[in-house]
């Protein structure tokens, strides 16, 4: 499975020039910033003041989770569950965790 071409980052890690790959919305679904918008320092501070903690940005601007790391984390996940593959509940749990790992790339 290939990692998506976007990264979910903490707003405190965001820097001016990063492009939003998804809209930023409040919990009540009010959209604050549209997809494709380029972040500026002022905008980051404003989003922080509205309580936004994370944003999705285009590409993989932050190091650490490249394709190899992704493959490795999935391999380790399968290894962790390798002794409970006969239990349907645990297989479903493994799929949930895998989805969570993918979402965090």
């Amino acid at each position, binding site marked *: 499975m290939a990692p998506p071409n976007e990264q979910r980052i903490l707003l405190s890690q965001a820097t001016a020039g990063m492009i939003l790959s998804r809209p930023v919305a409040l919990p009540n679904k009010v959209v604050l910033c549209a997809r494709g918008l380029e972040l500026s320092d002022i905008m980051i501070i404003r989003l922080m003041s509205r309580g936004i903690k994370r944003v999705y940005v285009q590409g993989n601007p932050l190091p650490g989770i490249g394709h190899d790391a992704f493959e490795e984390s999935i391999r*380790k996940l399968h290894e962790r569950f390798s002794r*409970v593959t006969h239990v349907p*509940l645990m297989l*479903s*749990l493994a799929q*949930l*965790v895998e989805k*969570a790992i993918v979402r965090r790339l």
Partner: protein
Amino acid sequence: MSIPLATIAARMVSVTGASFPRSLDKLDRLINQQTVPTQVVAAVLGTDPMLSAQILAEANATSTSDITQLSAAMLHMGLGSVHGLVRAATPVPEEHRKALMACWTQAGACSTMTQLLASACSSRLQAHYDDETLQAAGLLHDIGTIIAILQFPDEYQRACTRLEQELVPFPTLLKEELGADTAQLGALLAQTWRLPPLLISCIRHHAQPRGTDSFREVVSLVHVARILVRACGFHCERDRFVECLDEDVLRQLDLHLYDFERLIEQFLDQMEERELYEGLVGGKTGLNPIIRQ
């Protein structure tokens, strides 16, 4: 060859507090400053299973009622006595640091997940447990593994080696090598240190919550929390294989797979923030760095 349980129990008497040098230095400096709020000291201590256990033990030794909250234990003892314990704690040996760091991380992760689970099940729980009690239950549940690494390193290593080759759970292998599994080891220490019954139950029965008649709800929460955090990769170094969730426990707590999806997201968010925070300020504060397996 395993060791008689009585001999293992006798060894528990000599167990003292141990932690990472950076944490001990940081706590020493924080308490010395005298202007740092107790809550900040409690927050730093709350990431350390061994020091937390020792402070809870000391507080309960002179209390007429059970103390399961770290801040209450610190209040009961006084900051001076807490400082004395921190100063008396020994730095963990260099050769065990990597393994112990993973245990510290798993303990912190489990304390976070236990609180999240309790919050998700709050309307179904018969008893109310405060956040600090849940935190202590999750933090201390696997203290047996820490004791195995520190006190019985040869037997622990042999069990780890066999784990790679045999399809047997790690606690069973440790029991064969040592004479006690991780839950028994932890419970022996907890009884020696006279920790409150709630914490002893969580330590003794977290793998099989149906084995306890007391505090079954909180033991069940710790059981589920432990398996979820290990599933997410927060485990004790080589003891990395996920155990089966007890489906009766899930029914009892009325927990379902769709609950886990949201809980895992919340949990990973919290761990990410904690990792980032501690990573950012770790150089200044000396908080334990969080490492992910």
